[in-house]
């Protein structure tokens, strides 16, 4: 081992530093603590986003009635609430959940490192996000209220205060989102450097657990897509504060430019949130099927292809926005082609299940439940990607249902699956399986009952972001759909109560977790639960790829990545399939 990096030297040393409360739990540089901070922040923000969903749904089902716990929702408020719901859920829940929490916790553990490459930068990225969240929450309390231009903040609605009446709310929104971008750019430095540079001996790129691959691809996609939108955010902020006209036509600006900048980021952003969700599923499904992930390299290439394609599809959000109509055809083709890499991922996961020895733990239920629901999100994307049909469906509830069916299965179902799966590793205790299954059933059933009706409302032509639709005769048949969706939303929110109880009860009273409760192969299971400071008590060496389950030639049905081969390989080829080098 000529290439001993400082991390390997520091491994072994394993001293528990005596830091004060502040340095151990608040301004900690330990990736595991930071991951839990991300988790806590995202769950807290999810409460806000969920409350917003409650208000939106109530208003849509029973317009202009008293919302228990809030009061009446005014039109202006309604626009602010939908704006904040979207912003919070995408930027301050989904991203910190699947990237911040799982990426931070698992990347160093899975590659066998003692921490992230730049621990202090890691701490800074969390606290930057914290400031961003604080700014966003502060915008609720400024005069004239929070941003009300939609989470897409289309100019010129967002570019001049007169159009919405919102003053500082929109400015703070822009600042909060820009801070969030900066935070995840800093986080991305660590993801990339750690995953590329701090792998232990034997951990080749083709032996990386899929979660690391997905976080890595997500970080790169984010970095390459967000720059132009940061530039756009500067320009929009100047339009608002200084009175320039980048996005306002009165002095030659162009509102469409904002849409280009936004969606050039916005589409890859979906994969930034989605791919790690897939990564979590791809870790969990092999474990509870006791089968290797089917076609590891095919999936990796598929995800890279999806990432590349995501940069050339953005105008499908803009088919009817006034772009040159000739542009729609190529963008429509690239968009529909996106189904190819995702078909690879989905089919591979499905085939992984075939012939397995399936155990439906809470983690597995959320993983396959997420997969099952994502398929709906996937196929409905074809409807919207086809420009001819998008003329009708664009801007309706069909779109709303579609993107909830892609983001929720990946970020939320995937995230919950990951939480049930890695909770023992994070906190050293097992979660309650019964409550977990109740949580899954409630979430799965209610989720589908919320958004299937919304597909139908979309087909009926129901435009989204409508405060109330009673004045439209053609939407009368859609009204009962909204009532169903709202009742299901109440169920969905109530369905999270078993989770909250389970989470806190297991933290305190859960059964102590052993090192490897699921008999999984990746390196994080080869250390204590929870891992000590420095993660591993001895240097790790990796001998095989991460999904060696159920090999009939092996002595047991799982072979940890760091487990040395059982017997010296005889000359002329070993019995252990060393597939990582194939």
């Amino acid at each position, binding site marked *: 081992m000529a290439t001993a990096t400082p991390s390997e030297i520091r491994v072994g040393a394993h001293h528990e530093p005596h830091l004060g409360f502040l340095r151990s739990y608040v301004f900690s540089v330990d990736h595991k603590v930071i991951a839990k901070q991300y988790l806590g922040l995202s769950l807290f923000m999810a409460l806000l986003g969920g409350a917003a969903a409650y208000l939106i749904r109530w208003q849509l089902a029973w317009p202009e009635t008293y919302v228990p716990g809030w009061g009446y929702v005014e039109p202006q408020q309604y626009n602010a609430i939908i704006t904040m719901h979207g912003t919070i859920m995408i930027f301050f829940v989904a991203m910190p959940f699947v990237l911040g929490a799982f990426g931070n916790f698992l990347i160093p553990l899975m590659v066998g490192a003692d921490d992230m490459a730049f621990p202090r930068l890691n701490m800074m990225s969390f606290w930057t996000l914290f400031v961003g969240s604080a700014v966003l929450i502060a915008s609720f309390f400024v005069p004239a209220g929070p941003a009300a231009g939609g989470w897409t903040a289309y100019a010129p609605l967002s570019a001049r205060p007169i159009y919405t009446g919102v003053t500082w709310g929109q400015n703070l929104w822009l600042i909060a989102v820009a801070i969030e971008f900066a935070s995840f750019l800093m986080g991305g430095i660590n993801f990339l450097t750690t995953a590329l540079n701090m792998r232990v001996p034997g951990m080749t790129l083709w032996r990386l657990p899929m979660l690391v691959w997905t976080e890595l691809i997500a970080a790169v996609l984010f970095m390459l897509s967000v720059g132009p939108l940061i530039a756009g955010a500067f320009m929009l902020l100047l339009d608002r504060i200084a009175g320039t006209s980048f996005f306002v036509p009165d002095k030659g600006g*162009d509102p469409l430019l904002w849409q280009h900048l936004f969606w050039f980021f916005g589409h890859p952003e979906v994969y930034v949130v989605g791919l790690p969700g897939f990564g979590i599923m791809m870790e969990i499904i092999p474990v509870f099927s006791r089968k290797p992930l089917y076609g590891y390299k095919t999936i990796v290439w598929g995800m890279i292809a999806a990432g590349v394609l995501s940069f050339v599809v953005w105008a499908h959000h803009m088919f009817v926005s006034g772009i040159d109509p000739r542009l729609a055809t190529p963008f429509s083709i690239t968009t529909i082609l996106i189904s190819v890499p995702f078909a690879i991922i989905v089919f591979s996961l499905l085939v992984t299940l075939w012939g397995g020895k399936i155990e439906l733990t809470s983690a597995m239920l959320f993983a396959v439940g997420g997969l099952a629901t994502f398929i709906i999100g996937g196929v409905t994307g074809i409807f919207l990607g086809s420009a001819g049909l998008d003329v009708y469906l664009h801007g309706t509830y069909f779109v709303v249902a579609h993107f909830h069916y892609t983001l929720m299965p990946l970020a939320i179902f995937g995230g919950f699956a990951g939480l049930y799966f890695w909770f023992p590793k994070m906190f050293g205790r097992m979660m309650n399986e019964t409550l977990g299954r109740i949580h899954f059933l409630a979430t799965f059933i209610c989720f589908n009952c919320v958004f299937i009706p919304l597909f139908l409302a979309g087909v009926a032509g129901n435009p989204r972001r409508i405060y109330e639709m009673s004045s439209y005769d053609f939407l009368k048949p859609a009204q009962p759909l909204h009532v169903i969706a709202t009742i299901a939303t109440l169920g969905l929110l109530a369905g999270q109560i078993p989770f909250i109880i389970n989470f806190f009860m297991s933290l305190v009273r859960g059964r102590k977790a052993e090192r490897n409760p699921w008999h999984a192969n990746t390196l994080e299971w080869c250390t204590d639960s929870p891992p000590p400071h420095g993660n591993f008590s001895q240097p790790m060496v990796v001998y095989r790829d991460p999904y060696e389950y159920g090999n009939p030639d092996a002595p047991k049905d799982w072979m940890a990545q760091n487990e040395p081969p059982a017997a010296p390989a005889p000359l002329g080829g070993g019995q252990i399939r060393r597939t990582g080098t194939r």
Partner: protein
Amino acid sequence: MLTWLPQNVSTFGGDVDHLFHIIYYITGVWFVAAELFLFYCLVRFHKSRQAQPLYARGESSSQAAWVLVPVLVVLMLDLGIDKIGGDVWHRIKLELPPAGDQVHVTGKQFNWEFTYPGPDGKFGTADDQTIENELHVPVGTVVRFELSSKDVIHSFFVPALRLKQDAMPGRTIKGWFEATQPGTYEIACAELCGFGHYGMHGVLTVHTAADYQRWVQSTWGAAKAAAK
């Protein structure tokens, strides 16, 4: 799902619905197949029924085929959908048939303004009439519209025509439609445009030929209408 589509009254609306049906059935088959496969696996290969899992890595080409062949079929269907969808798009947005009638549509917070050229058939003359939220067109006539906005982005959405086009401040966007059935249909705004967005509500009245003449006369007066 298909029955939720509202009544169609435009010449190209049928193409849109047709495209909807094609995609619906293609994706529907895949959706059902995938979900059945998933559910079958969960039941058939539950650990209570399966002692020894199948060991398959999916890396040899014969194994990878189980994924790649279906993916290839997906690719072929994709290209087919692209072709059909591209044609529909071309018909709605790229071909502008010769105009039988013209109107300027202007969005503003929170009303639609419909400007008619009047009997002389020319815009910018004294007999132009602007009516808020009421669009009157004759049946079976190609209506060319020019869409613009006075303030923010709006989206001109007529569900019964299967027509949607954003109105963008600073530019004029051309489009067309031809209504096939007399009646009144609703116009909505499909792009968030401020607190009054939900009330940005217009009505499209498709007149029979005789009816339309009557409307023209009542709007411009009998003498001028005769000149048309």
